[in-house]
């Protein structure tokens, strides 16, 4: 066991640090609307031009072809530099793109990967439906084959950034007669295709992050099916593996920065320093945040040996969600009356506090993560 970075990795860190120092946006990231989208896209573009987009993606698709360790170094320096949240590029860069790399055809990879890295394509995720949340495989959005197209009818919900997206990773039922996990396909949906309608939904944090999406005879080429017709459940599990595994590495690294910011705030106020309930809870959170970083390292070490994130990713996802919520709750106590003023979801304290409730819902609820841990890590009998 070691925490040594190779000379090449150290060199890489120095380059990242220098580049971020000169290039990370200093201005405030807008929390909503077109201004937010334009900001996120411009920042993605700048990272690409600097040679920092897709660090662990293959070189032939515009990436750097480096390992998850370099990716980790990037996020460590990213957090250190206070660089902004990835925003609308989350789905494309962190799980849609990786899913295409793992499961897509050559044509699909050529059509999308480079454009995702350049900030030319924003992606969203069409998995959940009004009747299919935790029981994702029960989804009913139908796709019927008509010549060389699928014709899609149905509805998706909780689709983050659908109003800004160009493409969507969409799960549809292509065989209604097959067992529920075997009749699903993962398709690339053009969000500008006729029959796609998007209605933004406001979150409890006050912004319009997610949407309902309606499909009315939307025609999608069969060539857009990823990983084979009726094989979508397996592809979706790989997507969720990326989302739960490496997708939140940046936020895991960032949590430590936020915890230290709250500790510094408490240390600057003598009245709070005398409140051992606050200081001890914060101290425990600090220790657990250190453990989260250690778990991130352990997870990467395991992935490096095994090649892909496993069910253990659910442990990290759950732990991170719970710690983020504890930080939010503590911050509301520390802030006092200042907590009456709402901040952006990604800046200040009240916005992130409210946003933290999504951390144990999105990407599989805490309950689903516990099911996965119980069944696939501990080998307990299946829950109902």
């Amino acid at each position, binding site marked *: *066991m070691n925490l040594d970075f190779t000379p090449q990795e150290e060199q890489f860190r120095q380059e990242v640090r220098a580049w971020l120092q000169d290039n990370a946006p200093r201005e405030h990231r807008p929390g909503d609307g077109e201004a937010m989208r334009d900001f996120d896209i411009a920042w993605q573009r700048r990272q690409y031009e600097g040679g920092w987009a897709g660090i662990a993606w293959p070189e032939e698709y515009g990436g750097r072809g480096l390992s998850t360790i370099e990716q980790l170094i990037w996020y460590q320096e990213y957090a250190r530099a206070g660089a902004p949240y990835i925003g609308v590029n989350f789905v494309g860069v962190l799980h849609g793109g990786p899913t295409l790399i793992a499961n897509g055809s050559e044509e699909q990879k050529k059509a999308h990967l480079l454009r995702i890295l350049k900030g030319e394509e924003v992606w969203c995720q069409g998995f959940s439906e009004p009747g299919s949340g935790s029981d994702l495989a029960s989804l009913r959005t139908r796709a019927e084959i008509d010549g060389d197209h699928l014709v899609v009818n149905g509805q998706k919900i909780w689709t983050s950034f659908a109003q800004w997206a160009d493409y969507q990773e969409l799960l549809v039922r292509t065989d209604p007669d097959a067992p529920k996990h075997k009749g699903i396909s993962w398709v690339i949906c053009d969000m500008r295709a006729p029959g796609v309608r998007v209605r933004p939904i406001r979150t409890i944090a006050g912004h319009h992050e997610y949407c309902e999406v309606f499909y009315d005879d939307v025609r999608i080429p069969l060539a857009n099916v990823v990983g084979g017709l009726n094989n979508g459940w397996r592809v979706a599990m790989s997507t969720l593996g990326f989302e739960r595994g490496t997708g939140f590495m940046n936020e895991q690294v960032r949590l430590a920065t936020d915890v230290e910011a709250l500790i510094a705030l408490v240390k600057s106020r003598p009245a709070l320093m005398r409140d051992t309930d606050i200081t001890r809870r914060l*101290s425990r959170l600090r220790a657990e945040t250190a453990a*989260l970083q250690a778990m991130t390292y*352990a997870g990467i070490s395991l992935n490096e040996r095994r090649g892909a994130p496993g069910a253990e990713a659910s442990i990290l996802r759950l*732990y991170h969600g719970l710690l983020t919520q504890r930080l939010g709750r503590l911050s509301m106590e520390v802030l006092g009356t200042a907590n009456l003023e709402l901040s952006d979801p990604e800046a200040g304290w009240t916005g992130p506090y409210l946003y933290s409730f999504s951390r144990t819902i999105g990407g599989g609820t805490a309950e689903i993560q516990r*099911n996965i841990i*119980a069944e696939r890590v501990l080998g307990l009998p299946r829950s109902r």
Partner: protein
Amino acid sequence: MDLMPSPEEEQIIDTARALLSKELPVDYLRWEKGAAAAPDRALLSAFAELGWIALGLPEDAGGFGFGATEEMLLFREAGRALVTPMLMAAVIAARLAAARGDAESVAALVSGERKVGLTISADGGEPHYVIEGDGADHVLLVAGNRVALLPAGNFGERAPVAGVDGAVTLERATLNEDGAALSADGEAARPLLRHLSLLIAATLVGAAEAVRDLTVAHASERSQFGQKIGSFQAVSHPCADMAVRCEAALSQAKLAAIALRDGSEDAGFQVQAARIVAIDAAIANASAAIQLHGGMGFAAEYPIHFYLKRAHLLDQVGGAAASQLDAFFALDAL
């Protein structure tokens, strides 16, 4: 960067696990005859022969030159098997002797010839509680910012008490003579206290894992309402939480062990974090395990309560959770 054990480290884990599961199966029969006759004490010489006390000492100090990582992995196994804290006391005592250049004491300690008990001292002073003192000729005193190795005879008015952890013996005692030949204070004691905290964290990781495994096995076998109880989320979800706490505590203990071995600037920070996370994991997991075992969990003849009690015992060694949290909060950010 790699937090997976190396082949060499794997070998230490496998050897320890094989020996301990054979010689010390976690079973209530172990303590039928009382803690003083427990088989783990009788095995101390065998552990010494295997090199477990000398494992992490530098070769020029009479050790095997392995690092804190190997020791951490070893004590995780010892924690699973509820091995007597005398092993931990001997390892720290040998480090103290090596730091003081006392080769004779090092040799007596690493050979297992000199047996060491461990003290817990209320607020660094009286009364002193001596753990396993009846089977020891020396006692490791851990009080405030001081670590010392004293002949057992230096303690007086020794009175056996019924301890919370019935798997070890406990005495109340006063410290009569404190002319310790082997003593470290303040800055000199810091690396020893840090090392002790790492071993405590590692032991508690093993305890947290042991009760997780016992509970998963129970939930996979026991049926109620016509189903294995592990299929009920009211049972499986607390088991999942146990797994999360184990993963957090183990990962942090590994990171802390590496930082300590490498002499990193953040070693103190990481070790203290490891201890805080591990004590929480051990107590929370053992508590959940008692609940999930129902009536069996509350029965003394079933082993789970020993893990809960061991966690509370070790929590008090060198300063309990609240003082650990206060000290950790006072540290500067990394």
